[in-house]
């Protein structure tokens, strides 16, 4: 029994060759597979570019935009890879299906290819390259998010079983509605009073768990006016489904007047707005 490695050269040739013989270029198997692959890739890219934009809610912060861009980019990146596998699968059903499912005796044996070092090397190499691209993209966005600049507005978020309360330190205001000034760096300091909840301001595109006994932080800078919903993203018991609250990104002046309406003194609002406390 000749061992696998002796006849590697001819095996590849024999394996790949028939793909390029057999009449004019467009009729050869490799061309047909390429066409199927191209069509599927196009469909994948179109889906990636068109679909998420319409289904995602209207994001009001760069992080939200990052999440959307990541989905679009990864779909477009994945389309050719998936299409490659699907094209070969589809082609194998179209061209290499020798016997319909009815017969009880199998078709004659296929060629005894046990593997080809080239294909394996190319495949793993491509996978490594793709992983590196994914990694750079992910780490890049992550790095851009985590560096808070100065005059950061602090908001303390308290989760408890089935209710979110937001307090604005220094102004004495505690509210069930999360009102945020636009174009300001906001740092949320989040904790919980009983079990683990998930503080998830959906349209801000960021979330973190509210853990009892600990304070966790996320920093978001909303850059568009608009409403957003806060939902609980960690199962927290009976009324987890109803643990939502409402948020709004407003202009700095509207933010100051809102704080005063909630009973904050003017001086505390001005020092708070400058990010002192």
């Amino acid at each position, binding site marked *: 029994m000749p061992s696998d490695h002796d006849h590697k050269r001819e095996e590849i040739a024999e394996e790949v060759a028939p793909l390029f013989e057999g009449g004019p270029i467009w009729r050869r198997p490799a061309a047909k597979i390429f066409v199927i692959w191209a069509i599927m890739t196009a469909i994948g890219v179109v889906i990636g570019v068109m679909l998420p934009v319409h289904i995602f809610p209207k994001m009001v912060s760069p992080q939200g935009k990052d999440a959307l861009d990541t989905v679009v980019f990864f779909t477009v990146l994945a389309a050719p890879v998936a299409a490659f596998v699907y094209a070969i699968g589809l082609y194998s059903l179209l061209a290499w299906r020798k016997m319909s499912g009815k017969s009880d005796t199998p078709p004659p044996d296929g060629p005894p290819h046990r593997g080809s070092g080239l294909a394996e090397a190319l495949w793993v190499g491509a996978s490594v390259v793709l992983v590196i691209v994914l990694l750079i993209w992910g780490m890049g966005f992550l790095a851009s998010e985590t560096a808070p600049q100065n005059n950061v507005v602090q908001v303390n978020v308290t989760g408890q079983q089935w209710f979110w*309360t937001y307090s604005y330190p220094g102004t004495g205001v*505690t509210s069930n509605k999360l009102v945020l000034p636009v174009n300001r760096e906001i740092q949320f300091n989040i904790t919980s009073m009983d079990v683990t909840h998930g503080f998830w301001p959906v349209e801000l595109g960021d979330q973190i768990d509210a853990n009892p006994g600990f304070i966790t932080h996320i920093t978001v800078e909303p850059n568009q006016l608009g409403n957003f919903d806060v939902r609980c993203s960690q199962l927290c018991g*009976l*009324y987890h489904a109803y643990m*939502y609250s409402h948020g709004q990104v407003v202009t700095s002046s509207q933010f100051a007047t809102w704080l005063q309406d909630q009973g904050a003194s003017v001086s505390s609002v001005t020092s708070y707005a400058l990010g002192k406390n």
Partner: protein
Amino acid sequence: MKRTVSTVLFVLLGAVVIAAIGVGFWSQAYRAPAGTQVAKSLGTAVVNGKTVPHVELDFSTYPDASGTMIGGQPIHPGGNPSWPAYAPTNKFQVPAGALVTVKWNQYDSGGALNNNYFAWPHGIYGPLVVNGKVTDHIDLSNVGHTFTVRGEPGVDSGFFVSVASPANGDSPTDTSKPQTVEFSFIAGAKGTYAWNCEFPCGLSIGGFGAVMSSYGYMSGYLYAV
């Protein structure tokens, strides 16, 4: 052909079995407290320029609600008849946008809130009257229960009502004279609003175990129709 018939029959049989299990679960889930308290009409009222129906809801909270709820206790499997509960039922129905006046008789004992935010009334229209006196908030360390309803995103996310009630004496058996709480609020748009009590009178972590996390005792729905 025979094969297709028996396949279809089997699938239907399977579907019937699954549906039967579904009915089993459904019967367990909402059997009690049965019924919905439809708010009593008190005519109409003028609220910031618009005439809206004026209705009244009255409910009470008992330390041991085994004998006081329509259709018996919320005998949700694992529930305990002697747990405190809102009576007569935990589901209320009010006309959308109506002015709702609530009369609440609070018999149960209580203690300190874990979040003082709930001591203050929120989202009410007009004064909060406790035992006949207008008060701006309930003593933080002596709260009985809270009635906290939250608006639903996409339906009426601005709607929010939260009112606490003072605890009633230290011994829960003193059911002679309740703490009375009276307030009004403007019902939100047509929809289903979930309410629950935010005073931790249960066991275990955060005091929200047992009665607090069993449906029907300290949690329910407010339907605006």
